[in-house]
Structures are given as C-alpha cells and as structure tokens.
C-alpha cells in the first residue's frame, strides 16, 4: 500500500481540488482510500459526496474543574497556571478554551479542589464515496491537539484501506509547517506540494521543502494557476530543481474552476485542467511505484513530534 500526502505550506493553493481530482483519476483503475487531514477546515467531503457509515468521538486531553465548595480561594492555582486559564477575579472558574489540562493547578492546590474531565475535542467519520472510502474529521471549535486528530485520521485510514484492500491512500493535508503537517507526513511515500506562482507561494514552498528535507520525505511539485505569473513559475521550477524535486505538472488558471466547485463538480470537468492533471497523475504514479531517489529513513522520526 502507498500513501500520497498533498500539502502546500500556503493555504488556498488548490490542495483539496487536486486531491478529489486525483482520487477520481485513481478510481478509474481501482477504488482508493482518501483521508482529509486538514481537520481545522475539512473540505474534501464537500467534493466527495456519499453516505456516512460511521461517526466516532475523538477524545484528547482533559480540562480542569474547581469545586467552589472545597476551594479556599488561596489563589495558588491562578499564580502557577501558565495557560492563563484561572483568573484571580473568580478562582473557581477555569476557562475551558485556555486550559491545557497540564495539572499544575491540582498539584499546587492545598485543599484538593481540582478534578479533571475528559475532553471531547472532535469527531471522525467514515464515508462511502463513488471512488472508495473517505475518512474525515471535524475538530471542535477552539480545540487544540489537531495533530493528534490528524494522527488518528491517518491510522483509521490505514486500517480501513487494509480492510477494503485499496492499494493507495490519498491524504489531503493541512496548510502550514507545524504539528498537524508533521502528523500528516508520518510514514508517507511521497508528498505532493501544490503551489502557486506568487511571492507567498514561492516563500512557503521554500519552507515546506526545508521541512521535507529535515524529515527526509520524498517530494514532487505541482504548480497551480501557472499562467498567472510566468516569471514566478520559472522561479518555482528553479527552486524545485535546486532541491532535486520534480515538477510533475502545471495547471492553468481558469475562472471556471471556482464556478465548477460552486456547482459541486471537480475541476477535472474542465478540459484545460483535466489534460495536464492527467499527465501529472501519470508522473506521480510512476514516482510512487519506485522512481524515487531520496531516502525515507527519517519519516518515522516524525511520530515523536506529534503532540
């Protein structure tokens, strides 16, 4: 089984549209498992309609509660809490959005007024789509630990892919370069970097390439909306070639794409996009089936940084 993770550094470059389109292309051959790891803003399900067959709660961490009858109002907890979750105005109220569940308040409380409750931080779901199973999730509003939920989505996707005997897991990753991105990359075979020819696109791609180099994850680049700036497209190609990373394709800008998305259709329905995307998919499958030069050794080291 192979795992392809689509990330970008910069948000809004077209990751989700690309993942849904690639899933459609892959499904011509055989069903594919898709996973939406952008758990803070999960959009893949909007493009992959189907039937939800399972919804499971996701628990992460705990939150402190202070019993007002026991509390002696000494204020030690507020003094020691670095998350700023307890304030001296009302020592019996813990701000649930700020509390990290570290337990310092309970440690310093002289009268044992602090208890903890498990925190449901979100849900994850399994859906049946025309292309194969989709695993997606919703992180609760104002929750942290999205890296843990990403790790869970990846793990469930692996289990479901084995059960359904699909050869490929396609992962829609989060933006940025922090914890949820690390969790998305763990143990993947190839990272596809979707970028755009702008100063922001170039700058963020540079940082993502540095991250992938740090964790020794093999990569390929797909340039979206390349015709919006031929000069920045050249700069991105140069950046990729200096990093030893193949540009597997370039997609044109088309105002038809957001319009198609608004109708719930895939960009593949637009010919100007479909042709280069299909060619890019051929390059990606070639890379996945063994044309990769860079080592994978440190991909497992990522597990350590998932918080």
């Amino acid at each position, binding site marked *: 089984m192979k795992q392809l993770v689509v990330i970008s550094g910069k*948000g*809004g470059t077209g990751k989700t549209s690309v993942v849904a389109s690639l899933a459609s292309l892959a499904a011509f051959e055989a069903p594919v498992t898709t996973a939406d790891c952008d758990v803070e803003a999960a959009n893949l399900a*909007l493009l992959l309609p189907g039937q939800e067959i399972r919804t499971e709660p996701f628990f992460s961490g705990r939150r402190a509660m202070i019993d007002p009858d026991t509390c002696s109002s000494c204020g030690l907890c507020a003094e020691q809490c670095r998350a700023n979750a307890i304030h001296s105005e009302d020592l019996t109220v813990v701000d649930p959005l700020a509390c990290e569940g570290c*337990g*310092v308040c309970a440690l310093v409380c002289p009268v044992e007024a602090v208890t903890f409750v498990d925190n449901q931080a979100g849900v994850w779901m399994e859906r049946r789509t025309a292309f194969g199973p989709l695993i997606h999730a919703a992180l609760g509003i104002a929750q942290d630990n999205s890296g843990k939920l990403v790790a869970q989505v990846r793990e469930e996707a692996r289990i479901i892919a084995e059960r359904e005997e699909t050869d490929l897991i396609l992962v829609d990753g989060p*933006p*940025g370069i922090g914890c949820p991105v690390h969790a998305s990359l763990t143990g993947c075979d190839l990272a596809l970097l979707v970028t755009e020819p702008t*100063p922001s696109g170039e700058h963020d791609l540079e940082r993502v390439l540095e991250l992938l180099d740090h964790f020794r994850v093999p990569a390929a680049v797909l340039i979206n909306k390349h015709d919006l700036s031929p000069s920045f497209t050249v700069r991105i190609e140069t950046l990729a070639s200096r990093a030893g990373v193949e540009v597997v394709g370039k997609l044109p800008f088309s105002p038809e794409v*957001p319009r198609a998305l608004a109708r719930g259709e895939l960009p593949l329905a637009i010919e100007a996009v479909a042709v280069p995307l299909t060619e890019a998919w051929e390059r990606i499958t070639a890379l996945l089936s063994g044309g990769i030069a860079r080592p994978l050794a440190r991909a497992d080291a990522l597990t350590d*940084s998932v918080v």
Partner: protein
Amino acid sequence: MSKIAIASGKGGTGKTLVSTSLAWLLARDGHPIAYVDADVEEPNGHLFLHPELSDCQWYARPIPELIGKTCSGCGECQRFCQFNAIIALPDRVMLFPELCSSCGGCVLACREMALGEKPREIGRIEAGTACAETGHPIRFLAATLDVGEARATPLIGGLLDRIEDPGIVLIDAPPGTSCSVMEIVREVDLVVLVTEPTPFGLHDLVLAVEMTRALGKPVTAVVNRSDLGDDGALRYLEAEQIEVAAEIPFRPELAEAYAHGEIAAAASPELCSLLLPLESRLIAGASS
C-alpha cells in the same frame, strides 16, 4: 490602542492582501498603524510591505532540565506530565522537548528539587518599519517559527506581547480555527474574516464565525474574488446578520500586482475605494 485580527477559516482567501492593503491605506491617510504578521508557520507580509528591519530576536520558551545530582529516579515528574515529555530513568530523566507544553509542573512535582528550566529556541521575532515613503511609516512586527518546530502558539503569544501602542494594530492571523488562531482572537477588539464565495469558503467561514462567537468577539466579513463562485457565503452572512465590509471582485491586475510583490491597494484605486468603508470603521473604532 485598537487591535484587529484579519482571519479566515480557509487558507488562501486573501488575509495578507487585505491586511497589507488596509495597513497601507491607513498609513497613507495619516493614521498611526502597526502591521503584525502572526501567521508564524508561513509569514508572508514582508513580501509585500518590504520592511526595513531594525531588530531581530530569537524567541525561546522554557523546558525542564536536570540540575545538580539529586535526581533519585522517583518518577514523580513522569507521572505528572500529561504530554509524555519526560521519562524517569534510575538516576536521571530523558526529555522530549517537542512534546513539552512548558507548563512547569514537573519542576514543581520534583521532590528532590532536581529540575530547573532552560530556554529552548522555537523561532524569531522581527521588528521594523515599512512604507516610509507614504510619510507615515507602518510599524512592522513579525514572527517566524523554526522549521521542524511543532508548536506555534507560544511564539504567537511572545509576538503579541511585543505589540506597543501605535494606534491601530492589524494582526494577520494564520488560517484555521484552533489554538494558534484563538491566541490572537482573544486579544483583539474586532475580527475581520476574509472569505471566498465557494462551498469551501462557506464551510470554513461558518467554523470561523463560531470560533469568534465562542470568544465573544465582534466580527465583520470581506468577500474576496466575489464574482468567482456562488452566493452561499453572502446568504449565510445575511442570515447571521454579519456585516459585509467589502466585496472584492477578481481582477487580473490585482493578481498581477500581488504576483510582483506589490501592495494590492497601492496598485489599485478600485481596491482603495472598496476598502474605504472598512478603513473608516477601523478609524472610528480606534478613536472611540
């Protein structure tokens, strides 16, 4: 001081375009203004504001370290730590700094007083000025997370602590709705949500609105590329009685100016007039 967060659920909707343009407009019109780039994983404001930097400091957060030789291997620190960041061996501890939340509890839990704290660098904070040619320079502040570092929130906290009083403070937030965005939103007087009229934009806008409401903050919206998509976002905003401060249509010349690292408002009189009502609102908010 009046602090405004420019945020969005979805990435790539135009937060940096809107915040750099607003900063430029306010400076041009003579208002004291600071632009703060808090998208520390992928900060981009400098690519358009081209600031002259006067200060760069590494930012560190505290992590535990063994001091002296009194560790008895009792394991109190390990039992206390909720983040599995410290493991007790017979005569010392093993630390996983990436997992540490810097709560300081292990130091308090240690019976032998064998643990102290030391700083761990996670990024840098830069300060300077931009657009001095307008006659009213923009105060520029930005933080950049070290590549490979997992937790952005402490660095954002450190960045926000550095904000001084220049009048209007525009904070360019990261995408999403989680802890790092909340760290910013809880500090501000107004949240400007930048969205786009696609199903993705709408889906993530709803999450962002819920997040700002959970924190009890007033919110206004900017719809970018307003002619590329459907009317779902506008209908939602109307139903929720959220004011639309600006609708910015897609213009190739805006995309082009942006692609050349120019501030979009400086290149487009049309954008200036579209942002005028929002600019007025920010000025009114700062003086009230």
